[in-house]
């Protein structure tokens, strides 16, 4: 059963991991989150409506799983990125590469300062290229809410990124 969906799900994994990295701020946490989300999705494949977007459905599951984790830990936004420093030293080959790496490190730090709901919207629109309407459907949020979250996220993010130039 559901073989086609499962094959499609495997193909989606890299994008799910990217999304999870963007909302959690940590690759390891993201990897783990995607694993958990896939298990959850497999449990309720009967709830997936054929003809709708599997990626949207999966992003939603990743997002809700993350919110559950954050709540159960009773804290938010203080995870940081323990592997960030490792990654800088791992690949510090050449001045240019190191500089780019630092810029991207700042981008991740700026993203981490945003509230959870804004991060998810921004990840779908800016990284995944979702339309506002598709993002609203994926996150089961009104379109107006998506737009205001996005506007707030950008008004905070853009000045931070400007500083880093």
């Amino acid at each position: 059963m559901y073989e086609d969906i499962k094959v499609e799900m495997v193909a989606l994994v890299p994008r799910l991991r990217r999304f999870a990295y963007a909302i959690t701020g940590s690759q390891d946490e993201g990897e783990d989150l995607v694993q958990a989300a896939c298990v959850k999705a497999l449990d309720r494949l009967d709830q997936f409506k054929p003809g709708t977007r599997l990626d949207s459905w999966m992003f939603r599951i990743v997002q809700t799983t993350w919110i559950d984790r954050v709540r159960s830990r009773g804290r938010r936004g203080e995870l940081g990125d323990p592997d960030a420093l490792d990654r800088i030293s791992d690949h510090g080959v050449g001045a240019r590469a190191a500089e780019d790496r630092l810029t991207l490190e700042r981008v991740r730090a700026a993203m981490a300062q945003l509230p959870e709901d804004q991060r998810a919207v921004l990840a779908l629109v800016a990284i995944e290229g979702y339309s506002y309407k598709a993002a609203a459907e994926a996150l089961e949020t009104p379109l107006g809410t998506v737009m205001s979250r996005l506007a707030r996220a950008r008004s905070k993010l853009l000045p931070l990124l400007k500083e880093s130039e």
Partner: protein
Amino acid sequence: MMPEKVSEEQIAAYVDGSLDPAEAATVAAALAQDESLRAYAEEVRQASRLLREAFEEPMREPVSADLRATILGSSGLGPTGSPDRGAAEPGQVVDLAQVRKARRPWVGMALAASIALVIGVSATSVMIPGGPQPADQVAMVGTAPVEGPLHQALEALPSGRISNEGIQPMLTFYDGSDRICREFEVIPEDAVELAFGIACRTGDQRWDVEIVVTAPKGEVGPDGFVPASGPGADALEAMLDALGAKPAIAPAEETELLDRGWR
């Protein structure tokens, strides 16, 4: 005619490809006339590019055998062996088609032929001196530096040819004010994203880049084909409308123009 006032949210929505055709045309017209608005659009676009790059790493890693087995079960179904990211997976093809369809808020009419030309161009191998480089550093809105690779490519290459820097003029057309304009693509091999743009030739023999849109390279299909739709292509088409682009000129006419130095 005074351009209508547009808000930052509208500009961002335009860059995000989330406006309906009428509103997109209004914003494109305002952008064409106001440098400060273009600067804001560029800021939004750069921020999205940085975000894509910042969280890009998981895209490069193959799906672990464990997770693959968890999802597919023990049926042994699906592609096995090397988890090479470049290999096309059946599900991925379906998914890309769906994504494109879902992402296309409208179908632009202008220069449908140009977009058709884009299809079938594979991501050609190009080497950039100094290593990987984001596609849009080669192409920025504004006058292209005469010594730079973009100016050189637009000046010298017939449409369909690709420069060493991965710049490929796609087609040539006249805009509403009878300027010669060229649509181009930038596809560096190792870049995270590719860029499409339009540049028009000015009276002083320069090329003014009117718009650059970028698409994550993840959108490149398993065959290396560039998608014909998506927010980027839509923004480009809205800009073509705003410029009053006429149909692309025939190759023979282009050759003649090129030989005459675009005069």
